[in-house]
């Protein structure tokens, strides 16, 4: 009797879209972090992403400062080393987490694919802006480097990504709820 009750409860939990989503997104995150990110993503790819982020940050900074250079993952303004872009700062891990969230949502694969690509672009652009802002803060000897590096950027990035996810999921669910014309 107790077993049947437990099974029924489990069935209800699995059928609940929120718990289903949470479970799937957690499993995908586990697969991403333990298998894909640790074993399949080569360091060369991570370095390539850092190069691209550095190049874009240099372009952004060149609008305001002279003598910007980027070499060996370091960004310089006027010969002064301002920021070092490490592997944890290149945004690849965030890309993985947001992909897990999108994949766990019930939607057509086409919609998931374009939205994942859009998110990658947003993460890449925001990361480049972050690196440029952090470099400018160091150059200007501003005291707010730590707070921006540790907290503000994460809040802004995840805030933007979750707002995008809310808009996308609403639109997709409305589209899929529309009756098919015969």
């Amino acid at each position, binding site marked *: 009797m107790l077993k049947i009750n437990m099974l029924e409860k489990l069935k209800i939990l699995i059928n609940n*879209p*929120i718990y289903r989503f949470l479970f799937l*997104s957690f499993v995908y995150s586990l697969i991403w972090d333990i298998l894909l990110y640790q074993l399949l993503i080569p360091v060369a790819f991570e370095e390539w992403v850092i190069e691209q982020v550095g190049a874009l940050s240099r372009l952004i900074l060149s609008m305001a400062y002279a003598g910007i250079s980027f070499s060996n993952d370091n960004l310089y303004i006027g010969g002064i080393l301002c920021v070092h872009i490490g592997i944890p700062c290149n945004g690849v891990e965030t890309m993985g987490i947001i992909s897990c*969230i999108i994949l766990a*949502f019930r939607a057509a694969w086409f919609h998931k694919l374009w939205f994942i690509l859009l998110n990658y672009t947003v993460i890449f652009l925001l990361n480049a802006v972050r690196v440029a802002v952090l470099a400018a803060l160091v150059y200007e000897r501003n005291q707010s480097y730590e*707070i921006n590096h540790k907290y503000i950027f994460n809040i802004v990035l*995840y805030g933007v990504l979750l707002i995008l996810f809310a808009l996308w*999921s609403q639109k997709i669910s409305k589209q899929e709820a529309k009756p098919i014309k015969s």
Partner: protein
Amino acid sequence: MEPKNKQTRSKADKILKILKLLLLGMLLIIFALKYDAFNSYLISNAQSLTFLSFSVWIWVIKILSYTVQLLIDYLILLVLTENHRFPTLLIFVSLFFLIIGFLLAFISQKLGTQLPITVSSFFVKLVKSQVLLILFVAGYIVGKVYKA
């Protein structure tokens, strides 16, 4: 007249919610900055304590740090959902994963193996780098979408 009132009220509620989130964000940033200083003070003074061993003191600091982290996650989700059920579930899930993480780390240390380290660090990272909070916020969004 009534539907218009309802619309105005829901708009006001939304604005209030955004204001609450902004205020909470600001308070948390100020708190986190002070907490970092407090944490480094605790660690730097750990050596001078005579009544507690260093390793025990480090564990106390770690537990304190995780408690604060969970409290922050709880508050963020509470403001967002305005319902204590979902944030409480987050706390239970976080605690469950933290215990698994610490157990795996303990086992790997005792056995001297390297294999569970990535797995245990994943469970701890889920809480420490707020991945679980992000998953729960996304879950809340999904719930809203399905409700609508």
